[in-house]
């Protein structure tokens, strides 16, 4: 269920505010994959995204009793999440990636190798993984505000009304921010990425050959196990989504990326909820 389309059940929210553990668990399970997948695009690596997701839900649990219903619960929860993602310490990936120019130089330096002999399904999976990693790096070249606007509007297809409400900015301001992010990112992809422009020499598959040769690939392909779906399947485009009418569909490439729900993160959040010290911070059940 897409929380940016369907609102939370008010009965569950009310029960969670009273400290009902089942209701709190339901809220965490409903929003966890969405918070995590947005955090992953903001922080750039799974470890940092898991840490950020745990920090966000800790804040939510601490503050939930103070939710007064002046906005929808969804708006309140994602304001907590996005405030954290915009203000958290920069992740290692953010610090390393730098500017579009620096990132482009790294892409030029990585060898383009012949991919002819890589068998399927390893070949397809490797290419998909390399594409995801490289395109996530491109996102990190944007400022955090631009990145979040792009991730929400272009990748997760939030309408500008929903996105601007959660970000607590005017719709026109949000659209402008998104437009700038789109211009910067797409300009880079136009000049560098072979997925967008066939004249560009860079191809995900050619950058992938070295991984196969290095023997890093677990031949049982278990590394894909946390995949739930693609982002596009989890968050179908709604009428009114900002990118719905574009023909040159750069965001579609991002929407093909994996929408995942790491079991390790679920276990961490369950442990957090069961932690007795945290129990003192939660509202007392009736």
């Amino acid at each position, binding site marked *: 269920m897409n929380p940016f389309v369907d609102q939370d059940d008010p009965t569950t929210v009310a029960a969670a505010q009273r400290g009902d553990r089942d209701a709190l668990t339901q809220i965490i399970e409903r929003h966890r994959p969405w918070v995590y997948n947005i955090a992953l695009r903001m922080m750039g690596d799974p470890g940092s995204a898991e840490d950020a997701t745990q920090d966000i839900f800790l804040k939510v649990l601490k503050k939930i009793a103070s939710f007064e219903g002046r906005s929808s619960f969804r708006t309140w929860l994602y304001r907590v999440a996005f405030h954290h993602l915009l203000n958290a310490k920069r992740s290692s990936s953010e610090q390393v990636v730098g500017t579009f120019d*620096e990132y482009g130089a790294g892409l030029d330096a990585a060898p383009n190798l012949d991919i002819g002999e890589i068998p399927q399904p390893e070949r397809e999976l490797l290419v998909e993984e390399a594409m995801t990693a490289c395109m996530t790096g491109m996102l990190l070249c944007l400022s955090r505000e631009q990145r979040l606007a792009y991730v929400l509007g272009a990748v997760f297809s939030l309408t500008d009304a929903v996105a601007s409400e959660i970000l607590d900015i005017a719709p026109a301001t949000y659209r402008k921010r998104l437009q700038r992010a789109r211009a910067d990112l797409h300009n880079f992809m136009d000049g560098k990425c072979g997925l967008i422009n066939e004249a560009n020499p860079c191809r995900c598959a050619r950058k992938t050959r070295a991984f196969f040769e290095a023997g890093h690939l677990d031949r049982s392909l278990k590394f894909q196990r946390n995949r739930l779906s693609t982002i596009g399947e989890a968050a179908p485009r709604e009428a009114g989504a900002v990118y719905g009418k574009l023909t040159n569909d750069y965001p579609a490439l991002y929407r093909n990326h994996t929408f995942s729900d790491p079991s390790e993160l679920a276990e961490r959040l369950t442990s957090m909820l069961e932690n007795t010290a945290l129990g003192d911070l939660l509202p007392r059940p009736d």
Partner: protein
Amino acid sequence: MAHEVHKTLLVPAPIEATWEAISQMGAVENWHPNVARTEVLTDNDAGVGASRRVEFHSGGGAVETVTEQAEREFVRMDMAEVPLMRDAEVTIRVAATSAHETEVTFSTRYGVQYGPVGWMLNALMMKRMLGKAFDAALEGLSYHLATGHVVTDSVPSATA
């Protein structure tokens, strides 16, 4: 900046047999599911200075040289000629938990090539793959020590 991956498994074999399997440079092809062939490059097949070239089933390879070891405790090897990696080393530690079981830990420290792009490929791809490849190697070692069979390109599920 160095990256690290660690994996541990309890294998059903005494420490003597486990140590022999991991410290003999030519023996890795008997238990590592990703290794197709090994060539020992030095006169000595074990100990500091011993070196081997491993060829992976995928067609790539690496040169590994023992830089440090303590008998029946650990062996540390430099890894050279590995695509995408630089300054890579792997350490295998063993510790007997009983007369018939040994805890084996694979650890690696490495840098990545190609600047920010290499960093992203490692963060979202290589680190996870290395962890899974280590899991497979440990399963292969466990299977080999339990059965005496040579592991080819996959570990039979009978050990699961």
